[in-house]
């Protein structure tokens, strides 16, 4: 039984040792490149030349590629089908019975798929190599609200508990003669009685957990310390600034490309 929703894979790699904010900046940089670079193919270069090598450096390449593939494939396929075949107007390049593949649609699909792959793989890279509590700690240390950091962390662990509780509730009903094995309708009908105890039970849980947090001084103002120590280096600080400047440069360049023709006119 999994006890956490986190995708983090512990490894002793240089990527893992980076400060969470450095990893966050790297990922943001990839996102900006992926979303703002012009043309159809450049975003794929971001994936191949930055994201994949980083995943390899972190020692998580096989699971990373598997997860990226599984997440992106259905979306990529549907984008190609919908945009490629149903593009309104456009230049047909291939006829498939009553349908035809349009050049404009194909280009749009390639660009959208590239962007989607870059976004998904950037987030996967971050979650595979960054302890969620480390990231939240880094953000809190820079003024991110503690309560939001708490909710994000607790959700990761409490969602699987929710599933476990749902299973226990279902077991209790089966033990009283509720048939849950059978066709979809039988199973759907079996799930209905779960809703009330799950909700009422979690209201009680939430109240008690709020009390437990107060007992542990969660609401206390003033400086907090941390058992988890994040290591930062001057080089990483410089790198983060460079990445930020890089992002601004790409966005600025893209804006310029968009506005320049109109200025000229």
């Amino acid at each position: 039984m999994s006890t956490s929703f986190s995708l983090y894979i512990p490894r002793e790699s240089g990527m893992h040792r980076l400060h969470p904010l450095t990893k966050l900046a790297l990922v943001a940089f990839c996102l900006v490149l992926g979303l703002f670079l012009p043309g159809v193919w450049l975003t794929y270069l971001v994936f191949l030349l930055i994201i994949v090598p980083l995943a390899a450096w972190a020692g998580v390449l096989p699971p990373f590629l598997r997860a990226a593939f599984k997440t992106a494939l259905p979306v990529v396929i549907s984008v190609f089908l919908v945009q490629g075949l149903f593009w309104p107007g456009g230049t047909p390049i291939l006829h498939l019975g009553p349908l035809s593949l349009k050049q404009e649609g194909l280009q749009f699909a390639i660009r959208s798929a590239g962007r989607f792959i870059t976004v998904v793989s950037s987030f996967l890279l971050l979650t595979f190599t960054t302890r969620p509590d480390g990231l939240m700690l880094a953000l809190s240390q820079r003024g991110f609200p503690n309560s939001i950091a708490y909710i994000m962390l607790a959700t990761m662990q409490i969602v699987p508990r929710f599933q476990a509780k749902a299973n226990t509730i279902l077991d209790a009903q089966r033990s009283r003669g509720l048939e849950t094995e059978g066709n979809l309708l039988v199973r759907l009908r079996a799930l209905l009685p779960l809703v009330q105890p799950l909700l009422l039970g979690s209201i009680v849980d939430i109240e008690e957990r709020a009390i437990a947090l107060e007992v542990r001084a969660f609401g206390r103002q003033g400086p907090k310390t941390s058992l988890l120590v994040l290591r930062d280096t001057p080089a990483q600080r410089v790198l983060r600034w460079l990445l930020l400047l890089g992002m601004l440069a790409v966005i600025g360049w893209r804006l310029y490309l968009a506005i320049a023709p109109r200025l000229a006119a």
Partner: protein
Amino acid sequence: MIRLRDVTYFYPRATTPALADVTLEIPAGQFCAVIGANGAGKSTLCYTLAGFVPHFYRGKLSGGVEVAGVDVPASSLAKLAGHVGLVFANPFNQITGARFSVREEIAFGLENMGVPLDEMEARVEDILGFAGLRDLAERSPFALSGGQQQRLAIASVLVMRPPVIVLDEPTSQLDPIGSKEVFAVLRDLAATDAATVVLAEQKLEWVAVFADRVLVLHEGRIVADGLPGDVLASADLTQYGLQPTRYTQVARAAQAAGFRADRHDLPVTLEEAVEFFR
């Protein structure tokens, strides 16, 4: 140190008080057990000492509540944290969910208090050994059994070293020897660290052995208050929905059958019962 003066409390929309005219003083270093039937007000008393009545549950509180030198109604929960520790029955709901190992879970309270790293590490190590959780330190808190989670909940509060510790049936999921060990730990905390310990419990055998003092609550009122030997052997106990220990029960039944009819003090512990029947 705890001081309650004429405390009466109504939960929101309640027409009968959950606590009525409770006046009570518990000095530092005392281990005080609170017993009573379900609904007698034990949990409410615990929540009042820890400030959740009235700050969390609202409702109407009158009278004075002073705990560890803090005027509870006039203070806030944030200010009370660190002064009063509270442990309650369901250990699962006391896990923060924001930490991924037992060690970090225990440290959570110290982090919020801003305890420096080296001191925090030392205190966490210390309590891990004390609670028998050292071998489980790297596990996810959610991967522990109910009994282990209960020890974690207690350890997570004790590590903050509050001068006043309030526990509401903290041994419900522990096996018999585990429960006894918790009682022994609480007695030692009171005796050696001069902590004030208030424990609501149903396990009267261990109350009899370990507590310094026993309070009986009935319908929100304190109806008996004294040494365990006197309170637990009192004939009134059953009328408050409590059952004396088997030691007292057999002694009373034996007396009714003519055995040691001259004895006025009935045994409440195993040791006393051995002496009574020998």
